[in-house]
C-alpha cells in the first residue's frame, strides 16, 4: 500500500489525478443537471393544470407547445370550419376502443388572419361510428356546432405522425399532417375540450414522459453520469496499480538477473523460478532473449 501511495504521489500521477478529478467533477455537474431535469417536471406540474387564459396570449401558430405549457388550460373563441373534421381511431380509453373526433377551429388573430387550431372535441366508442360495412365512417361522427363558439380545454402538443391521413382518418393528432389538409397557419398543438358536447366524452390527459411526473429516464442518465465520473477515478487507480505491478516485476527481474549471474548458467533457469512469487510469469530464458 505504501508503495502504491509512493507511485500515486509522483508528479505524473498527481497531474493525471487532477485531470481525472476535473473530469469527475464535470460528470457530477452533468449528473446534477439530469437530476434537476428529472425533478423539474414534478415541481412544475405538482400544482395541477394552470389556467393560462386566452390561447392567443399563450402561444402563436407554428410555435412549439413546450413542456412548460402542455396540459394547462386555455380558452379560445372562433368558429369551426365546416367539413374539416377527422377521426383518430385505434385508441383505448379504459377497456373501450375509442375514436377521437378532431375538428378545425378557425381562430382570428390580432392581424385578422385566421389560424387553424385542431380541437379534439372528445371521443366516442368505435362501434358508434362503425358503418354497416364494418368500416369506420367519419361521416357518422357528430358535426361541430356552427357559429362563434367559446371553448376551454387542455393545450396538448402535437403527436408525432407515424401514419398518414386519408379519407378523414388519421392515426395521430399530428399537426404536420393536418396542415396539409386544412391549410396554414396552424397551431403546433391541439386543444382537448374540457366539456365536449354532442355525445362525446372528454379526452383523458395525453401522456408524455414529461406528464408522468418524475422522469425516470433522466434519473437513469443522472446515475450514468455518476458512474462515468467514478470510471475516471477508477482508470487513474488502475494506471497507478499497473505502474506498481510493472515496477514489482522489474525489481523481481533485476533480482533474478543478479541471482542468475551468481549461479551457474546450467541451472540458472530453474533455480530463480522456484523463488519467484506467484504472479505474472517471468523466466531467465526470456531475459537472455530480450533484455540483455
Amino acid at each position: 500500500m505504501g508503495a502504491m501511495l509512493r507511485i500515486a504521489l509522483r508528479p505524473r500521477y498527481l497531474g493525471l489525478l487532477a485531470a481525472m478529478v476535473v473530469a469527475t467533477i464535470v460528470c457530477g455537474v452533468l449528473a446534477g443537471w439530469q437530476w434537476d431535469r428529472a425533478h423539474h417536471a414534478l415541481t412544475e406540474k405538482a400544482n395541477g393544470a394552470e389556467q393560462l387564459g386566452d390561447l392567443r396570449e399563450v402561444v402563436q401558430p407554428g410555435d412549439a407547445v413546450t413542456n412548460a405549457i402542455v396540459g394547462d388550460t386555455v380558452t379560445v373563441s372562433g368558429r369551426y370550419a365546416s367539413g374539416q373534421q377527422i377521426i383518430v381511431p385505434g385508441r383505448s380509453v379504459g377497456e373501450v376502443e375509442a375514436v377521437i373526433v378532431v375538428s378545425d377551429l378557425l381562430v382570428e388573430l390580432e392581424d385578422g388572419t385566421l389560424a387553424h387550431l385542431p380541437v379534439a372535441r372528445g371521443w366516442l366508442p368505435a362501434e358508434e361510428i362503425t358503418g354497416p360495412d364494418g368500416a369506420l365512417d367519419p361521416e357518422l361522427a357528430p358535426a361541430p356546432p356552427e357559429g362563434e363558439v367559446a371553448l376551454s380545454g387542455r393545450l396538448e402538443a402535437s403527436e408525432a405522425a407515424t401514419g398518414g391521413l386519408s379519407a378523414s382518418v388519421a392515426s395521430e393528432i399530428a399537426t404536420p399532417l393536418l396542415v396539409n389538409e386544412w391549410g396554414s397557419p396552424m397551431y403546433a398543438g391541439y386543444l382537448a375540450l374540457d366539456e365536449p358536447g354532442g355525445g362525446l366524452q372528454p379526452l383523458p390527459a395525453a401522456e408524455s414522459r414529461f406528464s408522468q411526473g418524475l422522469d425516470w429516464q433522466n434519473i437513469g442518465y443522472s446515475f450514468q453520469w455518476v458512474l462515468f465520473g467514478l470510471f475516471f477515478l477508477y482508470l487513474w487507480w488502475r494506471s497507478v496499480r499497473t505502474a506498481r505491478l510493472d515496477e514489482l516485476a522489474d525489481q523481481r527481474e533485476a533480482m533474478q538477473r543478479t541471482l542468475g549471474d551468481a549461479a551457474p548458467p546450467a541451472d540458472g533457469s530453474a533455480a530463480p523460478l522456484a523463488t519467484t512469487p506467484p504472479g505474472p510469469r517471468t523466466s531467465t530464458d526470456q531475459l537472455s532473449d530480450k533484455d540483455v
Partner: protein
Amino acid sequence: MPTARPLDEVAVRTSFARFRVASIVEGIALLVLVSIMVMRYVVFGGDGWFTTTSPFWEHVSSVWSPIHGLIYMVYVVLGFDLWVKMRWALPRMLLLMFFGVVPVLSFFGERWTHQAMEDDLARRPTLQDEQDPATGVE
C-alpha cells in the same frame, strides 16, 4: 520501455477483435446520430438554437440517442478491456474514449489502436514468447 510482465497475446488479440467491432458499430451509430441531429436542428430547425419544428425527428432522436449512448458505453468497456490487457498508460484510455465521440474518428482510431497494439506485441514480451523461446520475437 519493456517490462518484465509479459502480455497475454491471445487475450490481447481477442480483446482487440471485440474492440474493433465496437469501434465500427460505434462509428456507424454516431454517424446515424449526427444525421438525426442535422435533420432535427438544421433541416427542420426552428428559429432559435437547438429548436426544431419536426416532432417526427424529435421522436426519432429521442429513440436513437439512448441507444447510441448504450453503444458508446459498450465501446468504452471494450476499449477499457483492451487498455487493461495492454497495460497502457492512462492518457491512452482517454484517447480511446475520445475516438468514440468524434464522428468518423473511431474508424481511424481503431486502425491506430491496432498499429499501437502490434508494435507493443512485437516490442514487449508476451506469454506466447515464453512457450516458444526459440523464436524470441513473434
